[in-house]
């Protein structure tokens, strides 16, 4: 099991954003874990079907969530996917999606680690 680096999830920044409310952090993680799979599914479908507008929209939504969670690296890849979608660039989308999925897996592990220490 890989150990996530702090830059995957900036806990200090996140706690500062929620006024150190650890309960709220857990709640936000829970919300993310609940809604993330369906968004990822729609994004994957859009990449597979080569639908740049849908890729742009789903990536934008995911980027917003990840930024709020101080998950900068995953947010950056979502932003990259969003740009590819906006610019109708199919090339590179699959690679970016794979990178995104991998990054989010790391993020989810980091979230669990944070929660287990609360």
């Amino acid at each position, binding site marked *: 099991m890989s150990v996530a680096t702090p830059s995957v999830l900036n806990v200090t920044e996140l706690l500062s*954003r*929620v*006024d150190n*409310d650890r309960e*709220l952090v857990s*709640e*936000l993680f829970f*919300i*993310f874990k609940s*809604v993330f799979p369906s968004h990822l599914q729609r994004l994957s479908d859009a990449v597979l079907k080569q639908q740049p507008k849908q890729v742009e*929209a789903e990536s*934008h*939504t995911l*980027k*917003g*969530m990840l*930024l*709020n*969670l*101080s998950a900068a690296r995953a947010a950056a890849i979502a932003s990259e996917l969003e740009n590819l979608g906006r610019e109708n660039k199919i090339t590179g989308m699959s690679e970016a999606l794979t990178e995104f999925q991998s990054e989010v897996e790391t993020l989810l592990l980091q979230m669990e680690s944070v929660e287990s220490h609360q």
Partner: protein
Amino acid sequence: MKILIADDDPISRRLLEKTLQRAGYDVVAVQNGMAAAEQLCKQDGPRLALLDWEMPELDGPAVCREVRKKKDLGYVYMILLTSKGLKTDIVTGLGSGADDYLTKPFDSGELKARLRTGQRILHLEGRLVEARENMRFKATHDSLTSLFNRGVIVELLGREISRSRRERVPTAILLCDVDNFKPINDSHGHLVGDEVLQEAARRLLLSVRSYDYVGRYGGEEFLIILNNCDPASAPRRAEEIRRSLSDNPVQTSVGPLLVTMSMGVHQTANWGVRTVEELLHQVDSAMYAAKAAGRNRISFTKPENSPLADDVTTTEAEQSVR
């Protein structure tokens, strides 16, 4: 203060909700632009809003445009939340009617500071509206009695006569004059005279329906317009109004005073081509007739008072009720 959050991202919505509740706001949270516009366009809806740019059904800028279309609403201070950071996006957002924007992820300190700016603007707007309403009230109402002033009641009379003429519905004009007012002033002073006028105004207002009009026409004269006043009921209603003053003494700072009034009444649905001034002259003559007949009574306009007597002969006749 009530604030609306509109965001389809549940994480952002919850984060905003919690941050703002902690800051003392009364939060209303919705998930899409249509629901946001509906909330903000309510008369008692939130006057402060945080709108996500990208939302289903109606995006943030479209919500701003919808709200700005409603001219009868109080000012709504709207902040767009966006992860868009391009200058063109910002220009588009502000051009749609937003007051400010914040980029995601927001900093809670900055968010609260910007909302305080919004509150200051809304507070200022509230004070301006209040000042305007005060000025409007002062310009249209008599300062002593708070009834419509002469200019307004005469204007309303003109409008009601036009309506009565157009719709062929009867309207009654009542000119009331407090009897022996000068002796009250001379004996007890002007402050007591003012108390009498204030109480007379209050009783007159209480004795009419919500859609009738009462105004201070002159010193101790009051003009009343009874809309849709059935010809058969006009004498009874005039009598009730007269008795609203005479039946119970007016409580003043020098003790109770018996106060009465004389009243001239003109009532018709057939106004002919007479001007408001001519009608007022007629009803004034009727009021003086009531005075001459002994005061504390009602006199209806005489047909012969009218330059176009055929307009009034069928419906009006002088009638002393007491």
